[in-house]
Structures are given as structure tokens and as C-alpha cells.
């Protein structure tokens, strides 16, 4: 079966079920051989993080993500694209976001997923704040993330 290619963007406060999303993604497509997913987890490197809070810009966020997903669909031959990104408060180990790409060939699926992540990191209006005990601080953008855009 080859239904029309689908692009789905969801911005939500509630948790999502990564396993169920991954399982359902592109499952009605038998013409796509390669599926890549990326998921971002609230990371607690030093064991001190209590809460991660993500602020976003309602309205612009959806538009920015749709633009990034549409651009990926133009650059690579993709059958399906999914982007889910949460905002609000979440604890260590919780899923922050995921992207999924389905393509006939693995190269397209991989590159498109990396492109989505690179742009989503630095061009979608989300800001992370980490709370460690009583202290909280905004996560700083890195040069590395900005540089990652240059390869595309």
C-alpha cells in the first residue's frame, strides 16, 4: 500500500507513549523499508536533577516544527514524518520528544531524522530550565548545536 505521505506534528504537555508511537508509526505502509526514531530523554548526569521545565512559544512552536518537517520532506524521499515535543514539567528519565521518519531507503530515513533534530534543537522555540534541589538554571545553547546546522 502507498497512502499519501503523512506529516504529523504534535506539541503537548502530557506524556506520550514512545513504544506505542514507534509501533504505530508508518505501520500501514508496506512500501517503506526503513524507519528511524530518535527520542530525547530528560538526562540527569550528576544525579541531582529534580525537574526539567520546558517553556515554549504557543503558536510559533507548531509552525516552526511544521516548517522543519516540510523542509525535510523536500530534501529527502520520505513516506512519513512524525514530531512530538512536550512542554511543561518532567522528571529524570521522562521522554521530552521524539521524531520518526519512514523512507524506502535507510540513508534518507537517517539523514532526515538527523536534520529534524538539528533544526528542532536550535530553531524551534523551546527553552529548558533545570531544577537541581533549590537551584534552577536555563540550559544554555551550545556552539556545537549551532554548528550542527552548517552541514545541511
Amino acid at each position: 500500500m502507498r497512502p499519501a505521505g503523512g506529516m504529523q506534528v504534535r506539541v503537548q504537555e502530557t506524556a506520550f507513549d514512545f513504544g506505542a508511537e514507534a509501533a504505530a508509526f508508518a505501520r500501514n505502509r508496506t512500501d517503506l523499508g526503513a524507519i528511524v526514531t530518535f527520542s530525547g530523554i530528560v538526562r540527569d548526569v550528576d544525579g541531582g536533577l529534580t525537574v526539567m521545565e520546558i517553556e515554549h512559544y504557543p503558536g510559533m512552536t507548531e509552525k516552526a516544527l511544521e516548517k522543519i518537517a516540510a523542509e525535510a520532506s523536500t530534501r529527502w524521499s520520505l513516506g512519513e514524518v512524525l514530531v512530538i515535543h512536550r512542554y511543561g514539567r518532567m522528571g529524570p528519565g521522562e521522554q521530552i520528544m521524539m521524531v520518526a521518519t519512514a523512507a524506502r531507503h535507510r540513508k534518507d530515513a537517517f539523514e532526515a531524522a538527523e536534520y529534524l533534530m538539528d533544526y528542532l534543537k536550535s530553531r524551534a522555540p523551546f527553552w529548558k530550565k533545570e531544577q537541581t534541589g533549590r537551584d534552577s538554571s536555563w540550559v544554555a545553547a551550545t556552539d556545537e548545536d549551532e554548528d550542527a546546522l552548517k552541514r545541511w
Partner: protein
Amino acid sequence: MDVLYFAWVRERIGLPSEKVDTGASTVAELVEELRAREDRYAVAFSDLAALRVAVDQELTDFDAPLDGAREVAFFPPMTGG
């Protein structure tokens, strides 16, 4: 015009958004007007290299014209993902 602030820009200015009456023709001119208001604005806008701006929900730069703009937002570099 609606002016929105996010993340530490919002915290420094102390507001998520406000209505601003302005004759500014570019983002940079709007920033000058805001800076002149009060210290908290001057502090929030002290280093433009640390800020990003969106006009009507599209990322742009500080030279961007404001004619017809309904919404301008200031925020730090984004950290999604």
C-alpha cells in the same frame, strides 16, 4: 503591538507579554525604546548577541522592519530536543 518575552528574558523583565505603542520601524528601534524604559529592560536587552527575535512568529534579525507586525517576541537561543 504585542511584545512577548520567553525564558530568562521573561524573568528579567517580569512579564510574559505586554501591549506596546510604538512608532519603531525596525526591531532594533523597538529594542532602543524598551531599553530606555526601565533598568529591567536595559538589563534584559544589554547583549543582543544573546537574544533572538521573532516577528509574527517567524525568526528574523534585529534589522527586520516592523511595518504591519502584530507580534514581536524576544527570547534566548532555543534549546529544544
